[in-house]
């Protein structure tokens, strides 16, 4: 363990004036974001793309970006509940990811507008003739859907606000009582987040196929979000260090841990994904297998195989060695690959309910992703400038700075 007190300078903890991350990056990201959304809108208005296709692409991009925001919230809560010491230097970055939740709430509105195009259970005439859908109409109806979504966002925004504000307040006061309070709240916070995330996954993704159900579905989206946040943290911190920020603050030791956790949660995702698939395959009950049947038709089968290889086999062997996780560029490449695979995972969850015969990847998928992703990045980087890049007076900061891995 490195010893002695590590003193941080102003340059290490704040984005300097005139730095591109302070000025240019939020602007560029914002322009791409707005541009992407405008282009998508125009494509629909100009009948280049069907409204249905637009809403499905939008939902995919939204779910992908949402998993980053929620992943940030989950990361912060988990670090508090486990009283972790290694992660203090990266926590502020995750806090800024979760600070985008209010933006995501606004970006949810198009999904509300596209409800009819997305969700079969909102087609009242069809539901009236379908006993299964009629039985669950008490849950799957527009009103309750809106109230639930509102509830989820209220809880997430409230939690993220409490944690962000507490952390930032501690930058000035160094008050240990804040840590104590946030630790005590993190247990109930995780339970609340787990439940709301689960039902959000049920509502927004699982109900795309309203006859189908899976008790593990919430855990599936949860596992994907954790893969996403660890990939995102790795990428953004490596990018920040390349731009001269956080120098000497985040070290190889921290990257090693981020890499380990990325590896671990990739394996966890695989475990959940395989469990769900395997049990449904084995029992072979048609009302369950239909979901996988949709994903083994035509080119969907190719994508499914590609996910098995790209989301598990390759990253498993790639991240296995110690040296990969400790090498910045290797970690960057691996993390970018995982983030891409996570997007493909979201696409694979959503798109088969629109394109039944095969993969139809269009420009609209790109513009919606750029749109929502760009706005997310803009908000994220804009938040980064407002506060120090690390919680400078966190009581466990020294432990984090001196941290040494196995």
């Amino acid at each position, binding site marked *: 363990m490195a010893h002695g007190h590590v003193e941080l300078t102003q340059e290490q903890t704040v984005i300097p004036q005139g730095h591109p991350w302070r000025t240019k990056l939020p602007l560029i990201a914002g322009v791409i974001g707005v541009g992407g959304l405008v282009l998508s809108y125009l494509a629909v208005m100009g009948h280049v793309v069907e409204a249905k296709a637009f809403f499905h692409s939008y939902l995919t991009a939204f779910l992908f970006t949402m998993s980053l925001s929620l992943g940030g919230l989950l990361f912060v809560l988990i670090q508090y509940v486990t009283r972790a010491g290694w992660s203090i230097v990266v926590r502020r970055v995750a806090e800024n990811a979760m600070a985008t939740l209010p933006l995501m709430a606004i970006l949810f509105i198009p999904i509300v507008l596209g409800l009819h195009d997305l969700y079969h259970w909102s087609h009242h005439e069809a539901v009236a003739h379908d006993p299964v859908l009629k039985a669950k109409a008490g849950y799957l109806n527009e009103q309750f859907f809106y109230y639930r979504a509102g509830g989820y966002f209220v809880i997430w925004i409230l939690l993220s606000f409490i944690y962000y504000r507490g952390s930032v307040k501690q930058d000035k006061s160094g008050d240990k009582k804040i840590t104590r309070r946030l630790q005590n709240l993190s247990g109930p916070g995780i339970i609340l987040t787990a439940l709301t995330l689960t039902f959000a996954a049920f509502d927004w993704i699982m109900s795309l196929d309203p006859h189908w159900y899976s008790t593990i579905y919430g855990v599936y989206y949860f596992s994907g979000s954790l893969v996403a946040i660890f990939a995102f943290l790795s990428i953004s911190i490596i990018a920040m260090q390349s731009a001269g920020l956080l120098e000497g603050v985040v070290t190889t030791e921290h990257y090693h841990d981020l890499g380990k956790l990325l590896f671990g949660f990739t394996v966890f995702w695989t475990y959940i994904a*395989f469990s769900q698939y395997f049990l449904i*395959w*084995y029992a*072979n009950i048609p009302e369950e297998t239909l979901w996988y049947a949709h994903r083994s038709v035509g080119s969907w089968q190719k994508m499914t195989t590609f996910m098995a290889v790209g989301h598990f086999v390759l990253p498993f062997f790639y991240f*296995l060695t110690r040296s990969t996780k400790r090498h910045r560029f290797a970690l960057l490449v691996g993390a970018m690959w995982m983030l891409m695979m996570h997007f493909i995972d979201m696409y694979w969850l959503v798109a088969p309910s629109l394109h039944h015969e095969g993969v139809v990847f269009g420009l609209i998928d790109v513009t919606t992703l750029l749109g929502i992703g760009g706005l997310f990045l803009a908000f994220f980087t804009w938040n980064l400038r407002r506060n120090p890049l690390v919680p400078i007076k966190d009581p466990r900061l020294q432990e984090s700075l001196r941290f040494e891995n196995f």
Partner: protein
Amino acid sequence: MAAKNPKPHGLLAQFDTASAIYSACEKIRDDGFKYWDAFTPFPVHGLDKAMGLKRSMLPWIVLVMGLTGASGGMLLQWWVSVKAYPLVISGKPLFSWQAYVPITFELGVLFGALGAVFGMFHLCRIPQHYSPLFKSERFESVTDDKFFIAIEAEDPKFHPEETAQYLESLGATHVEMVEQ
């Protein structure tokens, strides 16, 4: 059995703290000794580097064993279910790779674990129930709370009196000669 004045095994020096043995090891490494070792009641953090040891190759042994186990498991199940004793079970294909995953995985882990343990035994050359060092009574405390360094007579830089003085200068609280 022992010849008269047999060549000694080496010098055994006792140290009382982890930090003492750590700094001693760094110096011995830097001074170019080859046939020597440190003995501690528990693994001391960073001592491998202080001794200049190369990374262990155990992980590679484990990887090979693990892959062997996993592929062997898949092969066994394929052969049994497709060639040796094909049965149609609830309409599942003869080669139901999905169903073969659990045992494949388990056998991979088993062989990996066997590789780790027996690979470690091999790399350490244990069991090795005899060592000249066991002749020293003081050495019994190596599994309790004391630390030792042994420089073997085989080392080109070894000299009975000079090396003993050298060890004392490094902070050893006691130095003794150990017979073969």
